[in-house]
């Protein structure tokens, strides 16, 4: 939670699958960096998966959110469905041309590609809403 009471920044919740592959960790790293850059706020997908009330309610009440899954297994998406949280925005990293493997030496190019894809999805959505 933000140290600043009722802060207006970070109204976009970023949830990454953070799984045990390059794409899971790319999702995680992109979520970390987008949070550090003030684009949104990374939040705990595991807390939602565990059906912890405060986490689930936070995801239901946040104005906007994006789930970043590494691959088409769709674990993050599945957690949202099981927790009955609306999947407002969704990105699968293998869908944007990143091949899944077990190489955890992430490249700067791939991280930037994921961050840009997240920004593009939310920009497109905001444009559609206005």
């Amino acid at each position: 939670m933000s140290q600043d009471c009722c802060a207006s920044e970070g109204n976009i919740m970023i949830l990454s699958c953070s799984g045990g592959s390059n794409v899971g960790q790319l999702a995680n790293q992109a979520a970390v960096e987008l949070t550090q850059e003030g684009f949104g706020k990374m939040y705990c997908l595991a807390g939602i998966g565990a059906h912890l009330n405060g986490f689930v309610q936070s995801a239901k009440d946040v104005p906007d959110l994006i789930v970043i899954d590494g691959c088409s297994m769709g674990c993050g998406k599945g957690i949202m469905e099981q927790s009955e949280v609306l999947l407002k925005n969704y990105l699968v990293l293998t869908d944007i041309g990143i091949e899944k493997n077990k190489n955890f030496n992430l490249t700067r190019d791939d991280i930037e590609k994921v961050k840009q894809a997240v920004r593009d999805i939310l920009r497109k959505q905001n444009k559609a809403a206005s």
Partner: protein
Amino acid sequence: MKKIEVLGMGCANCNKLYQNALAAVKLSGREVEVAKIEDIQKIMSYGVMSTPALVVDGVVKAVGKIPKPEEIKEWIK
């Protein structure tokens, strides 16, 4: 006795939610304890992403928004 906790560190929105909680209790006609929780560690223990947040009997009901007294009243039935 039911208990409402208003989570927040004392900003205008937190105070507004606290007032709405008091109004909800009045509307309900029930005896309900209403507490302000301003300690950051206690607030974080609920797992909420932002404040203000409203908790009824230990269950988080609203996060980052200010429900109206009528809505809160339904949660303390």
